[in-house]
């Protein structure tokens, strides 16, 4: 019974997803996506209807999400890193040509002039156009012009009805009306006021024979290296397209003097920050755990409850609270200490402040895991070393600490990897600042991840290809560092037990 039930459930969920996802894909003619979707659906049906492949039944749900939202973006990032994708280079060459031609549209005196009626066909906006002289009726969409038969035209040129079209009141869907350009041989027809449309002429046009854009007496040649149309003087048109640039994004990070000075400084600070963070949080967390680790200690419960409080508070909000406690003019710290120090304005104190905030946020976790690991170490071991004449410090240093490190190294490494990319902390507390006067792109406390984010999404931004290359660098650095650290521990053998 439950066998049947679970099969029916699986099939209906799959069917529901297909019913929802297929129509928009069909409409967009996204055949590849459609094929992948259908293949995945078929695979899932086969898997859950058959009695075999039991492990896969448990692994597939999580793996599907892992592949689609983790692995694919990862691989896609690597591939973007080899392109110039970004502002001005977002689409294909055809899209760039279309944009250039659209932007060059100009009204030419004496150009054809139509009476305009707006209408809809299947929900899409249509211009119904009546030629002032011939009275011929045409329908214009983003795809071009087509003839309309049997329309009823008033004396002023307004269309009263047309078979297959729904006439819309003037002023309806205004934004769409203004945006619609009906392509024609010479240019495009656009609306001009509520009841009039004019044919605009494109002053720049693509010519296939020379692979260039011509117009206004000039010529811009297509360059497949930069993804721009460039004239004889080397000036390019604003709109470009996406091209493969090979390793140049990677090379730029390492060799461009405008970038690589920052890149190495950011990288060094990034290492200092993440190692220091792991170190101070571990030392404080372990000290607290050790202080409480005594049978004669009183009040351990209340201490524990208070010590882990920072772990339970909403981190993002408390980061902002810390930032404002360090505020120069209104901050608590300056007022209490009677100082006027611009904490976030000088590099050294901003960095110190960041590590202090990270200590506050991070030590409870270390405290929790160190407490657990301490309890797992048999007391006989330290007692035995005590009998052998070791001091408390010696038995900690020689017996407890090595055992703790074996257990906790994987967590220390993952804490390093986390702090290496601790975006939230930097974004909330300093936002990368302080910045040098002549450089607002990279600040003194920027990590690679915040620097990358700014390149891609903020300020002059839009350098998505370059940002992807930097992301790839971060991947490699984190992976190599973690791999080396893992090698030095026996962690890898233990996890397979």
């Amino acid at each position, binding site marked *: 019974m439950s066998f049947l039930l679970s099969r029916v459930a699986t099939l209906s969920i799959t069917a529901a997803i297909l019913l*929802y996802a297929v129509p*928009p894909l069909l409409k967009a003619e996204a055949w590849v996506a459609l094929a992948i979707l259908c293949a995945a659906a078929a695979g899932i049906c086969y898997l859950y209807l058959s009695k075999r492949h039991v492990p896969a039944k448990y692994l597939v*749900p999580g793996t599907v999400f892992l592949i689609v939202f983790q692995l694919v973006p990862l691989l896609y990032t690597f591939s973007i890193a080899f392109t110039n994708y970004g502002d001005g280079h977002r689409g294909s060459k055809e899209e760039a040509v279309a944009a250039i031609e659209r932007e060059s549209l100009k009204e030419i005196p004496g150009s054809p002039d139509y009476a305009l009626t707006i209408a809809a066909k299947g929900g899409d906006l249509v211009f119904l156009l009546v030629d002032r002289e011939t009275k011929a009726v045409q329908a214009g969409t983003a795809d071009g012009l087509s003839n309309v038969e049997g329309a009823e035209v008033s004396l002023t040129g307004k269309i009263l009805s047309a078979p297959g079209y729904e006439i819309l009141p003037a002023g309806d869907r205004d934004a769409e009306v203004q945006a619609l350009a009906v392509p024609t041989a010479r240019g495009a027809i656009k609306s001009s006021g509520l009841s009039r449309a004019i044919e605009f002429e494109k002053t720049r046009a693509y010519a296939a024979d020379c692979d260039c854009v011509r117009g206004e007496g000039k010529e811009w040649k297509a360059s497949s290296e930069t993804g721009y149309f460039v004239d004889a003087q080397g000036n390019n048109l604003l709109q470009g397209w996406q091209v493969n640039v090979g390793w140049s994004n990677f090379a730029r990070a390492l060799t461009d003097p405008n970038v690589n000075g920052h890149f190495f400084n950011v990288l060094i600070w990034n290492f200092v920050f993440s190692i220091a963070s792991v170190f101070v949080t571990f030392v404080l967390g372990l000290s607290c755990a050790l202080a409480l680790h005594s049978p004669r200690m009183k009040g351990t419960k209340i201490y524990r409850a208070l010590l882990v409080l920072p772990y339970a508070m909403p981190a993002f909000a408390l980061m902002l609270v810390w930032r404002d406690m360090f505020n120069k003019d209104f901050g608590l710290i300056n007022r209490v200490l009677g100082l006027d120090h611009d904490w976030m304005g000088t590099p050294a104190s901003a960095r110190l402040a960041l590590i202090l905030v990270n200590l506050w946020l991070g030590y409870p976790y270390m405290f929790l895991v160190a407490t657990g690991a301490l309890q797992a170490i048999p007391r006989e071991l330290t007692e035995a070393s005590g009998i052998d004449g070791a001091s408390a410090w010696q038995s900690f240093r020689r017996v407890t600490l090595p055992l703790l490190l074996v257990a906790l190294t*994987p967590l220390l490494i993952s804490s390093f990897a986390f702090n290496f990319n601790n975006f939230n902390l930097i*974004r909330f507390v300093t936002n990368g600042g302080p910045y040098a006067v002549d450089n607002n792109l990279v600040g003194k406390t920027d990590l690679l*991840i915040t620097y*990358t*984010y700014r390149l891609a999404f903020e300020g002059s931004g839009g350098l998505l290809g370059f940002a992807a290359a930097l992301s790839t660098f971060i991947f490699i650095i984190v*992976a190599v560092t973690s791999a080396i650290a893992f090698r030095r521990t026996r962690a890898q053998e233990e*996890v397979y037990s």
Partner: protein
Amino acid sequence: MRMIWRHAFLLCVVAFALLPVVFVFSAALNPLGTLGSSEIIPTGASFDNFVKLFSDPDHSFGRWMFNSVMLALVSAFASVFLGICAAYAFSRMRFAGRRVGLLAIMLIQMFPQFLAIVAIFIIFTQVTELFPPFGFDSIWGLLLLYLGGALGVNTWLMKGFLDTVPKELDESATVDGASHAQIFFRIILPLVSPILAVVALLAFVGTMNEFLMANIFLRSDDTKTLAVGMFGLLGPDNRNVNFGAFAAGTLLTAIPTVSLFYWLQKYITSGLTLGAVKG
């Protein structure tokens, strides 16, 4: 005598731990509601800041709270379910590619999802055009993205815990004629509920705190989560003025996580440590 030093040290750390929390508390009660007038010891008590927070016409704090809690709950449940399924397979079954799979999960997770922001941005630009409910400006698109991270460190943690559950239980159930699904849902899941609670809590807190992806995804005020919304509350122009309302919001945000946390605390220590020791 040595105990006194321990108490002195711990009291210092507790003071450090409580400093910002107490500051938030008194700032939330501070009737003036500005950063410059907030002290550690409350100078007055009023609920003006809470009223301001909910009545502000430019911001819909209630809505952010709802979005955040909804998103965090659904993503916690879903990611625990996906994770425990995989952990069950890794712990109880032997199949080709098991080691590689475990290692692959670890490796892929080592590259945090947000390093791929550029690619995710491009992918979801397409998704927004095709399926608006799962694209930008929707918490459901964000949910899908978060579930991509469901298999990860938590899977290892749960596998470690499952390894401690005796195999004889499954074997005797198999002899009695139970199917693998029955064993999983009826026997294993109830036994491992403490670790499920811990992982769910960690996922819940993680989602509540997530800012980077949410900030790219959620643009309009109605769809924002607490992290994105409250960050905006302290924008460059109103950092000083809105601080009281922000502190009030922080306290309200802390209530669900802090109470869940203390309720589950004894499981958290054992859960994290098992994950550490057993991998």
